[in-house]
């Protein structure tokens, strides 16, 4: 749905900058957009590669899958249950934040080295606290979460028994 809004943009200043950024372009039409726009465009362009290259050296597996499909699947299902600490309500598998990238890379590297997913989770919890894992552990603090279904089942059974007993009477 975003397609209809976009138009090709370029001007002489932008052109030179595009070449410097080594981005191949094909079309070149003049549009009268303000200098502020161009300045921003330029900034945005330079910002991209720098961030990306930094990322690649420190977190090689942030955006790269493991070659072995079974291990990648293991890593994927673990990543989906780890919280991105900088974002709001996203797992590290669903975020472009740098910290999520480094954590993805860490998870993939450790899985590749043969570590078990739960061992990695435990290591991360030790380091960042319970907050990092979307799968709550059973502790003195969280046991009510796990007792709840039992309570609900008991309550439902009680309610239904009560109701139907009355109902069976003619």
């Amino acid at each position: 749905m975003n397609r209809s809004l976009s138009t090709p943009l370029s001007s002489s200043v932008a052109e030179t900058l595009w070449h410097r950024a080594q981005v191949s372009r094909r079309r070149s039409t003049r549009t009268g957009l303000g200098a502020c726009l161009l300045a921003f465009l330029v900034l945005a362009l330079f910002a991209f590669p720098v961030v990306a290259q930094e990322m690649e050296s420190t977190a090689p597996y942030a955006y790269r899958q493991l070659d072995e499909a079974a291990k990648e699947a293991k890593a994927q299902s673990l990543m989906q249950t780890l919280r991105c600490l900088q974002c709001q309500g996203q797992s590290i598998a669903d975020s472009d934040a740098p910290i999520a990238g480094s954590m993805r890379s860490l998870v993939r590297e450790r899985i590749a080295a043969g570590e078990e997913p739960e061992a990695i989770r435990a290591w991360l919890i030790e380091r960042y606290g319970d907050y990092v894992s979307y799968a709550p552990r059973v502790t003195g603090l969280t046991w009510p979460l796990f007792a709840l279904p039992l309570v609900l089942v008991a309550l439902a059974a009680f309610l239904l028994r009560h109701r139907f007993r009355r109902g069976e009477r003619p």
Partner: protein
Amino acid sequence: MTAELGLAALWLAAALALLQLMAGALALTARGSALGGIVRPVAVVQGLLALIAFVALICLFAVTDLSVKLVALNSHSMKPLVFKIAGAWGNHEGSMLLWVTVMGLAGGIVALVERRLPERTMLATLAGQAFVSLGFYAFLLIASNPFERLDPAPLEGNGLNPLLQDLGLAFHPPTLYLGYVGLSIAFSFAIGALVTREVGPAFARAMRPWVLGAWIFLTLGITAGSYWAYYELGWGGWWFWDPVENASLMPWLAATALLHSAGVLAARNALRAWTVMLGVVAFSMSMVGTFLVRSGILTSVHAFAVDPERGSFILALLAINIGGALTLFGLRASTVTEGERFAVVSREGALVINNVLLCAILGIVLFGTLYPLVAEAMGAKVSVGPPYFNPMGALFFVPMLLVLAVGPLLRWRRDSVERFGKRLLIPALVTGFAAVAALVVGGIALLPFLGLVLGLGLAVASVLPLRDRNLRRTPLPIWGMVLAHFGVAVALLGMASESAWSVERLVALRAGESTSVGPWRVRLADVEPVAGPNWTALEGKLEVRYGGGAEQVLRPQARSFWTPPQQTSESALLTRWNGQLYAVLGEQASGDRWQVRLWWKPFVTLIWLGGILIALGGVLAVIGHVASDLRRIVARGKIAYRRERQGR
């Protein structure tokens, strides 16, 4: 001037709500009965005044009047007009104004058209509606005035979060609010019926179109929100049990239960107290949802504690409304009997079991959503996410699906297992066959497996109620039920299929290089700069082929907005009958490579198709019920007319 007009209209509307409450309450007493006549007109005018205030705010946003603080904080002169207008409710104050507007208008419509209930019950209902509205008017006028001026006016506004500059999201909040607020009408009907002890089929029939309407909008709102998260956030996830998502799911679960119990009450005069209770619970869940989303408590309990005014206000409203309703319920519970009785194996029995299971799922979602907040307040940070909600929810959802398949085939009052058992043979065979096939294919986790198998069985079972019927004479609500239940099966199949068979491919490609994902070949032809009205972007041109099919082009973008400065990735989707190809252009990697993220998601679109079918089923049911109500009114009018003529 426009701002002052809006503010004046808002104050007047609040004053009329107070008048509506007092007149309605006094009219219930012996001495004040003369006041009863003004309650309905006051309710209508109150709704219109709220509408004037809301239109005033939209005008301020449309012309970008930067001397109004709310506009300056949330808008920008260079934004496209449609997003300027949508920006009016894309913020806290505006969305609360939308809330009271919808509430006022809904109250006005009830006052205008609802004539079936005893007048005293109607007065109590409208007074209840005024009481709830008054709380929200006070909230707006005291803690979040949308018309506050800014002096001097800034030269330019702050802009709207680019993620929200999307048509899907422009209409997502109003849809949900219509649902939330529709439930407030159900709440008011419950209060009215409790006050005058008139809990019976007439009450359920009056309430049902509102519950159905609210439920349709909630269904559509959740469906749209899920699709928005899916394509706008750029990672292909469609549900994450995020507190914001749960805030919309909880009222839906309660409304679904209410809808079914109101049906039992209307048809069989059973489940009286239970239906009234659900009416209270459903609107409470709307308010809990609003509290979660609007108080800032989700970012952190501490953020809430630093600026607690708004959160505390909503919390106080929640406590007053729920507390008041529960007290009233407690006082009246002894006089509201459960009504007609029924056996375990009966339509009512199945509906009761489904109601209880829905409420259990609601309990899980509510508890799991609030628990991290409670834990944080106690000084410990924990996260509760999909690994908790999925299995715990399934614990109750799976038995609910089984009852859903059986329930519509049962007779009211009493049925025998021998009679309906035979009719379940076909869906049982389909389920068994699907289970064997899925086991042979292998490699499917437990939950997607259950989803696929039960989804197929339910899809067949859901159309069985039509089997022995004359299709031309089948009432619309039955068609609606069948369609909605079929929609549940379709959505379930979509979710299970996506979970079981999604393929992901992350690659760094040079222009001209190819890769594959599932049955697709994908070639990155080029990356080009493009610009929109308030953003620039890098756009990848991906040439894709399905199997040996024709070439198609996908153009995902990495966008940069400049007011406020923010990067977003605009995914590109290609829909086939059997799934969607999802492409995202990431950052530039080393050299001249580009990060490309690709997913092939078989049958993922069934998730939202199912949601739409469920909502459509609701629409059919509303049309059917309203049409039969109208026919009844017309017939009654004719009889009265004939009698009058004969009398002469």
